């Protein structure tokens, strides 16, 4: 019962290593390094890396910028709340506000074009969960996260809030159209 008894050899660090163990450690170490360099390599060669561009912001500052975009590029409104649908030009800065319990406004983007998507929350933590693509980004209040996105398929996308944000959390859904 030696795992629950002191080791019989006083110098346990001189205990021999079985070949099963030695071989496995070597294989496991190689695999660990492969995984590490895969993650680093994807930053060089991969096309899906989360931006780290972040600014501190306030609800007033951010809504002013978002409102300016909405005033300029709204093409129509949808739903009973008359949520504006905004079609900003390719390459521009687009803003999405997360707040209890909606995403505002609805965006209309073009397939294959690149946009700088600014995300923040006006109150609690929220989640940006783009479905059905399944891209998930945390939205933290006080921080403006600038994510460069390039939609690669046209269609209707939903933005589901997947960070618990209070009693009506499950009603918080937004939308992005890709033409």
């Amino acid at each position: 019962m030696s795992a629950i008894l002191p080791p019989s050899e006083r110098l346990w660090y001189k205990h021999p290593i079985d070949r099963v163990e030695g071989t496995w450690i070597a294989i496991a170490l190689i695999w660990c390094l492969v995984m590490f360099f895969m993650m680093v390599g994807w930053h060089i060669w991969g096309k899906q890396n989360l931006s780290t561009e972040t600014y501190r912001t306030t609800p007033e500052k951010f809504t002013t910028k978002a409102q300016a975009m909405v005033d300029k590029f709204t093409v129509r409104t949808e739903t009973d709340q008359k949520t504006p649908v905004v079609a900003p030009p390719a390459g521009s800065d687009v803003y999405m506000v997360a707040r209890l319990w909606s995403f505002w406004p609805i965006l209309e983007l073009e397939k294959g074009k690149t946009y700088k998507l600014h995300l923040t929350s006006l109150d609690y933590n929220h989640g940006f969960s783009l479905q059905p693509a399944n891209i998930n980004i945390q939205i933290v209040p006080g921080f403006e996260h600038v994510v460069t996105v390039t939609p690669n398929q046209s269609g209707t996308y939903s933005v589901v809030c997947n960070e618990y944000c209070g009693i009506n959390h499950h009603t918080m859904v937004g939308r992005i159209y890709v033409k």
Partner: protein
Amino acid sequence: MSSTTYRTCPRSGLQFEASAEKLMIANAFVAVVFLLIGGVLAIGVALTRWPAIHWLPADTFYQVLTAHGIDMLIFWIIFFEIAVLYFASSTLLRCRLATPNIAWLAFALMLIGAVTNNVAVFQGGSSVMMTSYVPMMAAPSFYLGLILFAVGALIACFVFFGTLVIAKRDKTYQGSVPLVTFGAITAAIIAVFTIASGAIILIPTFLMSVGLVKEVDPLVYRTIWWAFGHSSQQINVAAHISIWYAAAAIAFGAKPMSERVSRMAFLLYILFLQLASAHHLLADPGLSTGWKVVNTSYFMYFAVLASMIHGLTIPGAIEVAQRQKGYTKGLFEWLRKAPWGNPTFSGVFIAIIGFGFLGGISGVMMGTEQLNMIIHNTIYVPGHFHATVVVGTTLTFMALTYFLLPVLFRREMIAPKLAQWQPYLFGFSMYFFCLVMMGAGTLGVSRRHWDMAFSGNALAYEWPGAAYLMMGLVGIAGIMAIAAGAIYVYITVGSLLWGKRLDTGAQSAKFTPIPPTAPSMAAQTYGSAGFAAPGTFVLAMVFLTAFVLYYFINWKYLSTLWGLS
């Protein structure tokens, strides 16, 4: 000084000191009570997320989910772990427990804290989930309860360290501490870091809740809270792996294949395991890529390396022991002839396999910086941590309980036949539960979400039919696992109430030191003798193949998404 007594258990030969024994019983018993509460709450969670049933109203659901998370992840597990720490020090080293009165104080603080926190949640107004991200606020007593509990747990860790000092001073053993104690030390070191992090962030948050502090930065909160929230799960890893080694020793008389390898693997945990708190921050703004990559990979996956080592050496030690008993036919006779009817062994074995294949592999996926984007905050995440914390830790603790009932609690187990089946029922329904949860998560289904149908919402998203099917299966598997958990509570509590009292064994006023073991021939030779555990090696290669395939499948999936930079 020593007015205490020591008894030697007639079944196991283990020596229990009177005050340590009482504390172990108290801590383990309260742990099981919290498991019971958490299990009852789990019914509400499972039946609400099962779309066809959708049982509880939204506010109750979020409340129940908050309580379920905290009762299971914090109270059940840490109470049990304190019992394990006392066992690994006082019992395995055959010494008295340091400062039993302070250990009772720790117990009282933990209990008061746990009850205070539960009361806060059940009063409503504190349905903030276990994570309680600021600026969402709970009642002050919610944080106060957690802080009291943390202080108590911290004191208990120092009682454990003090006990190690006593054993050393009283020379109750010679040479180094047993491997299991070594693992428990690892767990306790991680626990100190964990609890300190919890205090650093929960104290200002408590002050914010009573209005003394104006603001706690949301991102700072997330960063430090996870050094508590994730690290507390790392205590579990170190603790349940120690128990796996103990179970292999108890059920088979297995020696570690190599003390050096196993201890080095624990050392890697102490050095690198904590970095994994970064897993929860990979989708966050404001943290640099370098920080994310270095931390999320435990520097360079050194803690994963350690887990892969333990995953080999524990079954490997069993294989070596079985082969020495003559089960040498083919690759797997040692495994076929294992005591599958002994719930301590079967529970541990099911836990090892499930922890590795389901919990381990999925954990690395979520912890890969880019792959995290297809998983973050989906129900894949609870799928993963039910595989680690429920299949890994909880099932291991259940298995250990079956060993402790006669040994520590001195009761004959009631319903031993039922106990034989319990690990299979619980383990396999949890395997299935985790798999379908991860399946639903791969389709994007959100965690902590009351209504996947978004009823009445003009912008509602319609999940694919497969997602509904998976969530239905989550409900069914969850109920099955809860039933198996109820069997465990029934057997444990029933044995304490109605089980036949067993002989206490020889009592003495003085401890009997552990006699030094002569270096065995086996220990001196295996290692140079060649390939001692070929069957385990084959199993390990199966594991690696599954790991590699699933890893690259996820990259393939990621590569089809929108461009992000």
